[in-house]
């Protein structure tokens, strides 16, 4: 039950993009087409799951026993950067088709604050290993969902007559605001 709570909370109630503001750059940048939104979402979810597995292990098995918690930011960001590199090389060699679909998004992910944010929240909320993995999948799913909705709206928006100064980022931010408002409807969805 707690796992379901963590999952839904990360995916919709406290959506990473719309209520924690994590991963705003790709949210505004890559959300022009539905297909690229899906690709980015999948890549992020994938890297997120790998990130929690490795950062959780390092944090609880290395940093805590040696009392090196103060190195966590340096270590986390290096782990994430190398992870993205390794995933990129691995996918390129073993799954060329997948690489063609996700490849261009992978390098962008290192600086995606949603990934580091996920690792930080995992520490902050003192999640166990299983909880962390569920949290990562929920967060990735929520990110993909937000990106998909946004790209759907923006594909239609291309045809709309937006006032000059609002064109581009301005209107995208206002749409995001309205989406955030509507996602508030998910509050209270589940309680334990």
């Amino acid at each position, binding site marked *: 039950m707690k796992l379901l709570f963590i999952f839904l909370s990360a995916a919709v109630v406290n959506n990473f993009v719309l209520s924690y503001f994590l991963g705003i750059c790709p949210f505004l940048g890559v959300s022009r087409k539905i297909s690229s939104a899906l690709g980015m979402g999948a890549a992020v979810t994938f890297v997120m799951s790998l990130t929690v597995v490795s950062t959780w292990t390092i944090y609880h098995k290395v940093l805590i026993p040696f009392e090196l918690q103060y190195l966590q930011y340096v270590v986390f960001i290096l782990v994430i950067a190398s992870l993205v590199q390794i995933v990129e090389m691995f996918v390129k060699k073993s799954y060329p088709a997948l690489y063609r679909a996700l490849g261009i998004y992978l390098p962008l992910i290192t600086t995606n*604050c949603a990934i580091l944010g996920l690792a930080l929240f995992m520490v902050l909320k003192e999640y166990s290993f299983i909880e962390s993995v569920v949290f990562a999948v929920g967060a990735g799913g929520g990110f993909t969902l937000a990106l998909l909705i946004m790209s759907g709206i923006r594909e239609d928006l291309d045809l709309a007559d937006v006032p000059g100064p609002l064109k581009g980022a301005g209107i*995208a*931010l206002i749409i995001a605001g309205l989406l955030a408002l509507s996602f508030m409807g998910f509050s209270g969805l589940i309680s334990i």
Partner: protein
Amino acid sequence: MQNNNLNQEFKKGFIAQNPVLVQLLGLCPALAVTTTALNALTMGLAVIFVLTLSSVIVSVLRKLIPYQVRIAAFTIIIATFVTIADLFLKANLPELSKSLGPYVPLIVVNCIILGRCEAFASKNSFVRTFFDSLGMGLGFTFALLVLGSLREILSTGAIFSINLFGSGFEPMLVMILPAGAFLGLGVMVAVMNLIVRKK
């Protein structure tokens, strides 16, 4: 001439190349911590600290760091200063540190800092880098402070917790919610667009 140049490096961060409002970088903290003016100001100062120190160090070391590993080197330097800022806040301003939560460590992935290190500091002398990053940092703080004040005034009728309107004020709750952050920033970006275009 030299002075004029430095002045230019310093000033561009405010309007013409404002990192948040024009370049749309570092939006995550800009949206997340602007619930009150004080939070916004603290975040701005933390970013100025990290941005200035790490880009000056990058600029000093720029000839030493091999090109292939420069991003990794920059990241370590940035993460070091972020940790220092975070530890300082936790030790001396625990309440503020708590309300900023994970957004202080998230400065590590703030694109403004890595962007300035890569685009400016790794190519320029440390004096010019210092003024460039100070200007960018102040521009960032300025944008955050305006948004933070706007949201605090509309949602609580106060600024820096000082009440402005008395008890008759009807708070606009939406502005303190995440939705209010997006709406407020959207309007600010549009206004900035108008200003930049007129010039």
